[in-house]
């Protein structure tokens, strides 16, 4: 049996993104030395929304951004059934000396973010790296990684999955918790 519960609806997501943007502005002012990096594949949807929102809230535009693909930086190639099909490494910029905000949709074990930080370092030595995530599944970390900006913190057990749906691919924005028995 599959049990499904909605955590955030479209309106909640809009408000959350707006709040996250305000928090980013508090710390990054005009974003001149800031680079926003989405983690491929799913972090890029959130990253795009955040950038679009930021550009309406502050005068400086465009905000420097990119998307990092972590496939070749993962630690589980020989431990998976099938290798991950890589996404595009869309990094036409240097992060040397920049304040980087990494963006992903769900923070779970922290392993993807570890890989993303590793991949990021191939493009220079950033001044700082922060993490923004829409959903933080706390208490499930395998590594000492914590987000700086969080949309919603949730407690979920291993058999529960958090699914983030985006208008661009699923028709509407919503976040679900799915429990399969």
């Amino acid at each position: 049996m599959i049990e499904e519960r909605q955590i955030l609806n479209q309106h909640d997501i809009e408000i959350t993104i707006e709040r996250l943007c305000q928090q980013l502005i508090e710390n990054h002012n005009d974003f001149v030395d800031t680079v926003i990096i989405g983690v491929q594949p799913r972090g890029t949807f959130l990253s795009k929304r955040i950038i679009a929102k930021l550009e309406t809230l502050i005068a400086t535009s465009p905000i420097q951004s990119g998307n990092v693909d972590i496939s070749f930086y993962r630690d589980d190639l020989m431990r998976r059934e099938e290798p991950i099909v890589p996404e595009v490494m869309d990094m036409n910029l240097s992060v040397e000396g920049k304040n980087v905000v990494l963006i992903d949709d769900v923070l779970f074990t922290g392993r993807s973010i570890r890989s993303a930080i590793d991949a990021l370092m191939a493009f220079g030595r950033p001044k700082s790296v922060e993490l923004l995530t829409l959903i933080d599944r706390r208490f499930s970390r395998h590594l000492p990684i914590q987000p700086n900006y969080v949309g919603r913190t949730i407690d979920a057990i291993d058999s529960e999955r958090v699914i983030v749906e985006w208008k661009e691919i699923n028709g509407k924005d919503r976040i679900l918790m799915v429990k399969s028995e």
Partner: protein
Amino acid sequence: MMSNLSVDHLLGIKYLKKSDIDLIFKTADNFKKIINQPIKKVPSLRDITIANLFFENSTRTKLSFELAEKRLSADVINFASASSSVKKGETLLDTVNNILAMKVDIVVMRHPNPGASVFLSRNIDAKIVNAGDGAHEHPTQALLDAYSIREKYGEVEGKKVVIVGDILHSRVALSNIYCLQKLGAEVKVCGPSSLMPKHLDALGVTHFPDLKEALQWCDVANVLRIQLERQDVNYFPSLREYAMVYGVDKEVLDGLDKEITIMHPGPINRGVELSSDVADSDHAIILDQVENGVAIRMAVLYLLAGKIKNN
């Protein structure tokens, strides 16, 4: 799209499906980006050991594999038969088993005997990549050639490719024919009849005896090296005569009413199969082939390593 190869080893293009080639190309696209980054190394194969076994001389293939392996962070050991116990009479299986006892996960092998890598894949427990086996196959060369055509024209399907030179002794030609045909290109060959294999028609390939006619037909000419070391009997009267009849030079290209792309797997015998002005011209994509070779080999090694289960 499939994310796993249908094969456990890369023994030849003959054993691959079109979807395998597409997957290798898509993965190579990503590695091509990686090798143009400021930091060109990724940690993907950090816990993998690769042995490069070269029972026959090679410079560029070996360098290209070694660079691909190092960019993937694999541990690499090299072996050349000239300096090994093969000279003391050890069999291939014994040599390889000794190396595998040192916990090697992938073997990249070049060997003078056709089928050597197939034999190895049946007898040892490691992933095998054929880096050339006699006059049989040289799959990574064919993949990088087709990849370079795809890069130049956007796709391989429907392109006309002529392979010029010694088809009889060439593993590059055989692998290229398989690869290009699987991708939907039309392939023909050109060269002296004495250097054509007997059963060309079985491969679905026809022969142009005349170079100019062949070049006029094609979009891409893949010009092979005249392999003097494989000419056990004299297949043509002299190098000079070969160059006059089958050498691709500026004059021949200027005589065509279209632009064609020139490829060469290297190393070039300048003034024999290719003249210097053609090799160095904008028609030639020879150095792109070399760059793509590293990306293709990274893709192949990455995808094969993904099949190693290591729990």
